[in-house]
């Protein structure tokens, strides 16, 4: 068990290095030049050169990457070339709100998706199945920004919830009310995939041999669905949710922009566009690490939940 975990983490580091390299290469080629941007519309050649020297941007790219790796290895993610803020601190500050947003989004959308999926699976091929699936797919079919802005318009008219910013910690009313809209918009992305996977996995599990055995024991249909079918169907669903975290992060970029949520997604987009490569690179590494960790966690969960996987070690 710990062995697998260590091995899994070892592989993750290899993957992370790959992410780092690709990220760095791409960011290097982005035409945005922070020095020019800082100098502004009226900046002169000399000013730009001075700024560039000052930021260390005059070094060749491979040298910069080596410096970067050295610093990373020493636990230092560097500083923003735009405002010299320590990348790690900035990301850490933005990570909390993003995790909060994603967590709340998942908190409502996963149960809803599960419920939809169960309803559909139990009525497979029926009218309810079609309706439920159509509804749940809608969430992934409309651009998030459109949904978000529509919600903002509704909220302005009804004055139901605050429309921008983070109100504070989640346990305060202010914090809670601020997260309602962004979490709703973001969660919509997840409902469809979860519902779809639940439907497929459960429909399969409902007629699995061991579920039939449970019925033969005299278990009631409810018990059969919840204790036996859903329990085994949960494995692929959890795996899917782990992978969907990536999509959710993508959605968070947009949601954070629309609802002025101070998260990593917005930070990352801003940094990429501005050519602030230590910050962008940091954000990419952070998000990739988060994704990898979540999926390691999913693997562990699966291992805990499925003795077959557990004993493979």
């Amino acid at each position, binding site marked *: 068990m710990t062995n697998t975990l260590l091995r899994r983490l070892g592989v993750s580091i290899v993957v992370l290095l790959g992410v780092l390299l690709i990220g760095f290469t791409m960011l290097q080629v982005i035409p945005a030049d922070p020095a020019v941007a800082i100098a502004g519309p009226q900046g002169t050649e000399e000013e730009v050169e001075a700024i560039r020297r000052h930021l260390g941007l005059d070094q060749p790219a491979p040298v910069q990457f080596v410096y970067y790796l050295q610093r990373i290895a020493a636990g230092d993610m560097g500083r923003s070339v735009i405002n010299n803020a320590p990348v790690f601190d900035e990301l850490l500050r933005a990570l909390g709100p993003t995790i909060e947003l994603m967590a709340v989004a998942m908190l409502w959308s996963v149960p809803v998706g599960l419920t939809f999926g169960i309803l559909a699976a139990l009525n497979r091929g029926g009218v309810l199945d079609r309706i439920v699936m159509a509804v749940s797919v809608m969430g992934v079919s409309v651009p998030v920004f459109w949904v978000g802005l529509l919600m903002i318009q509704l909220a302005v008219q009804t004055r139901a919830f605050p429309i921008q910013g983070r109100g504070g910690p989640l346990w305060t009313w202010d914090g809670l009310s601020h997260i309602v809209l962004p979490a709703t918009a973001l969660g919509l992305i997840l409902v469809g995939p979860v519902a779809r996977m639940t439907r497929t996995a459960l429909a399969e599990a409902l007629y699995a041999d061991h579920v039939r055995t449970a019925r033969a024991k005299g278990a009631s249909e409810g018990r059969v669905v919840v204790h036996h079918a859903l329990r085994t169907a949960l494995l692929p669903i959890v795996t899917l949710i782990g992978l969907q975290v990536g999509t959710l992060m993508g959605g968070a*970029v947009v949601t954070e922009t629309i609802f002025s949520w101070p998260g990593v997604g917005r930070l990352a987009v801003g940094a990429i566009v501005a050519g602030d490569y230590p910050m962008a690179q940091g954000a990419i590494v952070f998000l990739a690490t988060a994704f990898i960790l979540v999926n390691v966690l999913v693997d562990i969960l699966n291992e805990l939940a499925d003795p077959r996987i557990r004993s493979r070690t």
Partner: protein
Amino acid sequence: MTDVQMADSGGRVWRPAVVIPLGILIAIAAAAMLAPLLTAFDPYETELRQRLRPPGEGNLLGTDSQGRDLLTRLLYGTRTTLMIGFAGTLFGAALGLTIGLCAAFYRRLDMILMRVIDVFLSFPSILFGLSLAAMLGPGLDSLIFAVGLSVMPGIARISRGAALSIMAQDYMAGGKVIGLPDRLLLTRYLLANAYPPILTYTMLAFGDAILLAATLGFLGLGLQPPTAELGSIAAEGRSFLFIAPHVSTAASALIFAIVLSANMLGDALRDAGDRRAT
């Protein structure tokens, strides 16, 4: 093949669940292709003083922020969007498929190929697309490239999974035993049988690709004017969502129809596949 002909095509694929979304997709694509015949307006002719007119007489869906006929813009925009979705998915699928099949077929490559895929998968796809689009500069080809590369890892994974289960079938060994070269084993045997789940997933990826393109438009990395593209129309129209909701809404609705149909088609194809398997 030889003189041996195809006979029956197996299970019932042409069910309503397949036909309806496919029909919608084809209808939308046809309308986009025939745009010049369907509308008398010039998609590039601006008329600023006629801007943001609500749907009604003259302009069926109203006008956009430049006073162009919105319906016309949408029709031409659908062309671009389908082009991006199609070409991007095709590119991503071709790449992903090759990687996935090779990983399953040449077991020695599996480890390294899958790590590469993991790298791409761990890269938040929107940031990936964003970096790529920013790197290559705005333009159709870079958008297609960005979209393609972000759908690639998913397809590679699915392909590998599907191919692995085919690899376990006796007929793969059967092909080897009669002395078939790898080229034929990979295509005639592996691909020919592994494709259904891949196709299904590709339909879903097609929807994702279109949404990704729209999101890049929202983030300011869409196509350059005056090219019409649904995502960009929806993204730009969002500024007027409160005063002229028809622009963004109509474009979003069209995106919705395309993505939903692609999703439904993917689901239905999978269900059809399921049924045939049992």
